[in-house]
């Protein structure tokens, strides 16, 4: 779990289910101090940003939906599609065992943002997260 370095006043936890290579860019954002690792369990008012960073295989789907449900029980969840795989299946769009994009996995939920890249830079994630937080949770 992470928090945005630039908005310590907001308990926004980036929970990245780590399917594939895009997850390394989330880690790199941590390395560069743009995200801060957080061990604390978020309290009820916390907004969770669920960053789906990587290829979602059909075998992984139930775990991803379960993760969303767990966060949704604690408070609002903002879903971010990070990278080509989460957005469309990416290079693996034609594979029978790959979900071609996360849009259909969370019925009734909007995907707040689609971040392009294969993988996107760590900065691309943080710039967009800051934008989402600033527009939805004013300081």
């Amino acid at each position, binding site marked *: 779990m992470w928090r945005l370095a630039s908005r310590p006043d907001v308990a926004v936890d980036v929970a990245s289910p780590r399917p594939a290579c895009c997850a390394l860019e989330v880690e790199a954002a941590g390395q560069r101090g743009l995200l801060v690792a957080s061990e604390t369990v978020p309290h009820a008012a916390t907004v969770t940003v669920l960053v789906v960073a990587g290829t979602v295989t059909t075998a992984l789907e139930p775990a991803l939906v379960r993760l969303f449900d767990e966060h949704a029980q604690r408070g609002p969840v903002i879903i971010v599609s990070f990278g080509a795989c989460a957005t469309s299946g*990416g290079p693996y769009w034609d594979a029978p065992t790959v979900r071609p994009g996360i849009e259909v996995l969370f019925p009734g939920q909007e995907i707040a943002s689609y971040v392009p890249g294969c993988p996107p830079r760590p900065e691309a994630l943080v710039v967009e997260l800051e934008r989402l937080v600033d527009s939805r949770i004013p300081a």
Partner: protein
Amino acid sequence: MSDSTPQRNVIALLPEACTSCMVCVRECPSWCISVESHVEEVSEEGARRPRTVNVLDEFTIDYGLCMYCGICIETCPFDALAWRDSFDYPSGDRQGLRQDAVDLSRWWTTGS
């Protein structure tokens, strides 16, 4: 925050160099490029007969599918595609990642 080395963050289009040859479309492994075009006859003073030219109607890259391999840039015979540095172009919806010729040509001059 940015490196000094040139980045491969977005692909820009120079529409006036594009001849709608479609090589990039066919070579793209992700099938993320689509091009629409038509032919026109161009008469020239003194020429025995008119030339037929391809006219580009639309050029789209779906950045939700693009894997940034650069094959399109390498195979373009007319250098109409190039890398640019800009990485900040997310979208609130899936359709917003499908950039058309206007979007793609804007990167050519402003994408640094």
